């Protein structure tokens, strides 16, 4: 299965030995993400960077290449910079948002953000669909949204070249998304799919690269001015406030190493070999891909053997503890750069937290200007606390100075207002209360925020099954779990146990891990019926035993946690009765469980029962299963 302990150990071992780095053919730089999924037939197969046979050589002689770069080219580039600097003074969104005194950053707007006083309107943003746009109250007329990205053509070139081969629909989505990002507002995309993820990733990495390049060019330019002034004996220029406390300015939070691989290849797709070289790429491949020789069961499985979303999520290296610094210079992208000497941090929340706890400070997070969180739905299946931990440490005042030149720190950093300007981009396949809370509470961007909205249609389920939605009353989200447990143990479960049919071959699906423990304990202590459990902590042996016992009817009840199903995706046989302790976060799980009874021969839909326990606080989950309209009816129905 996807999480194979032995294979991840091997990965680590191989990382140490760096064995695979020596293997030939490992240095291919392909941008695999853009490989479309055939069955959807949406896009053609494209490979971005040309894979020539000399790549290996090129990489090894790269350093010399950089040193021996012909001078004239450099001069040309300086001129280009100059042009850009001139242009920036007009209305580049980087300057309007991250300049010395951004218009949006006023005392009033900060207060409005702190008190969460937003003025909200609904809008349509091209291919992004309907969105909710919020700006701090009193700042409705700020011009922040009008300024557009000024991405140099050279940087955009690879994307434009690729877009030429893509269907118009995707190109439009990419361009609309890029425009949205350019406003430097927070963006919360609540409906990513395996199909849109790669194209969004491409745009996001371009946005990040543009941000970093703009910032670095300004700094290098100022360095030059200062050294010129010093040489000429003039007093150094005063207006050189161009940086934060520490160098990293972009953070990308991801659940697994495999995603880091995809993000970095999306990033390097913008930095073609003709202009950039990638340092440590071989090491990166060996540490973030599966070790050589390891067979990826998921990627190689026959189509249809595993659900698509499961394959997309778990193929490749699924280690969830990693952190990577990426340093971007004019001519190179250096992976595995030191945190205080890099521009981009790619990490899992766990990896970052461990790093912060080891250093005893989060100074390298003090100057993050663009934070991207991808696959938030997967992060909620991991430890959400780590995500909160990271967000609590973003843009804090640093504890040490890390050799920074204090005269060059931008004033709003010194005032501790960096959090009010940070752009945060959240990507999720669906919303949960946790992700919504993060969006509402941890993001303080004074330029405003955009959240995509989506109307859900009822999810498809096998015909003929009687779905029984049972609502219980709860008036505060705080004691909702207690009320739910009480209702379940005093009303629902006794009714089930009374019925001879329903108290056998019954699966109880419990989304929250805490609820799972509680219900498990209740079964252990108070319920006489035989039962088995499947949680994310079950060993392979436990799993097969439990499945077997349940299938043969030795155990009447099977308790399954959502995380178990998320990570393992076993098909469970022998189900006749389904009880959802709460609606699952993943709508497809609902379909899957409702179709499992038909794995067995001769099962009629009328033999299957299904109950879903819900309260009004389950709105987001319910919406995905019953559809937006269906859910609102269910909620309105009352107890």
């Amino acid at each position, binding site marked *: 299965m996807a999480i194979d302990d032995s294979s991840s150990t091997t990965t680590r071992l191989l990382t140490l030995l760096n064995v695979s780095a020596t293997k030939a053919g490992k240095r291919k730089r392909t941008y695999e993400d853009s490989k479309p999924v055939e069955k959807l037939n949406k896009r053609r197969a494209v490979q971005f960077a040309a894979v020539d046979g000399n790549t290996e050589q090129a990489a090894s002689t790269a350093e010399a290449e950089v040193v021996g770069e012909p001078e004239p080219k450099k001069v040309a580039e300086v001129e280009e910079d100059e042009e850009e600097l001139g242009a920036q003074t007009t209305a580049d969104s980087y300057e309007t948002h991250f300049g010395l005194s951004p218009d949006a950053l006023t005392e009033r707007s900060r207060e409005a953000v702190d008190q969460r006083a937003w003025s909200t309107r609904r809008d349509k943003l091209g291919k992004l669909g309907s969105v909710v746009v919020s700006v701090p109250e009193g700042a409705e007329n700020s011009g922040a949204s009008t300024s557009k990205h000024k991405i140099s053509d050279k940087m955009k070139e690879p994307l434009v070249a690729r877009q030429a081969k893509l269907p118009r629909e995707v190109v439009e989505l990419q361009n609309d998304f890029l425009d949205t990002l350019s406003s430097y507002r927070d963006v919360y995309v609540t409906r990513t799919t395996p199909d849109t993820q790669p194209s969004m990733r491409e745009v996001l990495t371009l946005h990040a690269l543009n941000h970093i390049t703009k910032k670095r060019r300004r700094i290098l330019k100022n360095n030059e001015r200062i050294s010129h002034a010093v040489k000429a004996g003039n007093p150094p220029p005063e207006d050189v406030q161009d940086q934060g406390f520490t160098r990293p300015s972009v953070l990308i939070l991801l659940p697994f190493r495999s995603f880091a691989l995809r993000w970095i290849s999306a990033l390097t797709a913008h930095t073609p070999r003709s202009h950039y070289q990638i340092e440590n790429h071989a090491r990166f491949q060996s540490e973030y891909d599966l070790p050589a020789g390891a067979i990826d069961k998921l990627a190689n499985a026959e189509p249809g053997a595993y659900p698509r979303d499961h394959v997309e999520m778990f193929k490749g290296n699924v280690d969830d503890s990693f952190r990577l610094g990426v340093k971007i210079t004019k001519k190179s992208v250096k992976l595995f750069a030191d945190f205080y000497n890099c521009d981009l941090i790619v990490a899992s929340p766990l990896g970052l937290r461990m790093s912060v706890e080891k250093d005893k400070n989060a100074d390298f997070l003090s100057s993050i200007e663009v934070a991207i969180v991808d696959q938030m739905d997967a992060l909620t299946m991991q430890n959400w606390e780590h995500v909160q931990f990271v967000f609590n440490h973003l843009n804090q*005042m640093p504890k040490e*100075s890390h*050799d*920074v030149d*204090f005269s060059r*720190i931008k004033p709003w950093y*010194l005032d501790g207002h960096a959090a009010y300007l940070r752009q945060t981009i959240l990507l999720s396949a669906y919303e949960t209360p946790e992700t919504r809370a993060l969006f509402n509470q941890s993001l303080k961007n004074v330029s405003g925020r955009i959240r995509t909205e989506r109307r859900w249609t009822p999810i498809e389920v096998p015909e003929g099954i009687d779905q029984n939605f049972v609502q219980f009353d709860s008036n505060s989200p705080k004691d909702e779990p207690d009320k739910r447990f009480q209702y379940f143990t005093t009303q629902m479960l006794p009714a089930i146990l009374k019925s001879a049919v329903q108290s056998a071959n019954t699966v109880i699906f419990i989304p929250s891990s805490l609820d799972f423990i509680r219900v498990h304990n209740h079964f252990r202590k108070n319920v006489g019926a035989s039962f088995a459990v499947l949680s994310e902590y079950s060993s392979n042996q436990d799993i097969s035993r439990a499945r077997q016992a349940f299938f043969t009817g030795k155990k009447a009840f099977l308790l399954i946690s959502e995380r178990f199903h998320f990570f393992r995706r076993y098909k469970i046989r022998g189900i006749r009765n389904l009880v959802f302790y709460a609606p699952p976060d993943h709508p497809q799980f609902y379909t899957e469980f409702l179709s499992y009874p038909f794995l067995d021969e001769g099962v009629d839909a009328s033999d299957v029962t299904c109950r879903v326990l819900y309260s009004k606080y389950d709105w987001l989950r319910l919406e995905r299963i019953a559809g937006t309209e269906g859910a609102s009816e269910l909620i309105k129905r009352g107890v």
Partner: protein
Amino acid sequence: MPSPEEASTSTPPGPPSAPPTFKSLGLIDPLLEALEQMGFKTPTEIQAEVLPQALQGRDIIGVASTGSGKTAAFALPILQKLWEDPKGLFACVIAPTRELAFQISQQFESLGSTMGVRCVTIIGGVDLQAQKVALAKKPHIIVATPGRLLEHLEETKGFSLRNLKFLVLDEADRLLDMDFGPKLDKILKLIPKERSTYLFSATMTTKVAKLQRASLSNPVRVEVNSKYSTVSTLLQYYLLMPLPQKDVHLIHLANSLAQNSMIVFTRTVHDAQRLSIMLRSLGFPAIPLHGQLSQSARLGSLGKFKSGGRKVLVATDVASRGLDIPSVDVVINYDIPVHSKDYIHRVGRTARAGRSGKSITLVTQYDVELVLRIEAVTGKKMELWPVDKEEIALLRERVDEAGRLAIQEMKEQGIKGGGHSRKRKREEGGGHDDQDRDDDMVEAGMPKMKKKSKGRR
């Protein structure tokens, strides 16, 4: 550079035509407004003398007795020049103790409130990182103790004083003496030569070498009273008793003056701590202030005393200079100061700005010579403070008991005698954090520190 002897001395004002007002001295409106808000109506003598000279751009050596408004005398011209040419890192004021630095910066802030002056206090014992950030914001005025300022100049990247226009050394004689000298030399090297320099103190050294350090250019010496002196509104007393009875006499004084707010000066940290515990156990609202407390505790103590929450402050010489606490009625010298200058500074904590005040010095059989010396310097005779011997005898038993308890409590808390504790050594060895040495470091550990402070004064 002209030596200070050549420095012209301001001509004493002729027959006063009309008492000068702040307006007639040429101050601008925002400052006049602030002065009015603070309730300052007429300039004090030193202010009237200094302002015209300073506004002309001369370097100044200002000597005036305690509590005569010296801080405003240098703050006003600086703020006025700042108004004409607003710039970050415009002026730097150096003071010998942290509390004093804090107080000066408060004064700057209130005088400059109407013109939006930004002022930071750079002192030891406080978080370094926050100060770096504060300095990077380019405040107009820096008020600092020498050690921490030097640390920032040397180690904080991107911080320099190369555009500094004004340097003020408050309590200049203290700053220019042996203890701070080397640090001050280093600081002066990092500050541009084209600047205005002000030296201020109630007592001023005459040694040429020391003054040259400050690299004044063509300074004018403004002295309001040439003789080091105490103000006329101060009543000075002494109290003679045998050494072992010091404690009981102190308690007697505290008791009979219970309605007043008072500062008790001791020579050592140990005594300050012990007496404050003793006073507290006998029901007096006492609070200690010395160099072994953390900086926040020090400011906390001072704050409580200033606000009137505590009536008795038991302090070492950290509190002897510059601190402006208007409400102090009585200064008690539990130990007689070894240097007559220190005496002047200590008793200067009371009878400030025209108010009346008392000072009482406890004199034992060993201290008589010192008393005579002080009287010679101030030119005033102290009077005997009358006590009732019987009352003292009655108090004695309880005081001795309280003294024993205080010592026991200190042992339990692990507070050892001043100057000998491990903590002290570590602080000094640690170097960086505590580079601004406090006055009580030398005074407190007299016998042991003698070698270090050899040649002081």
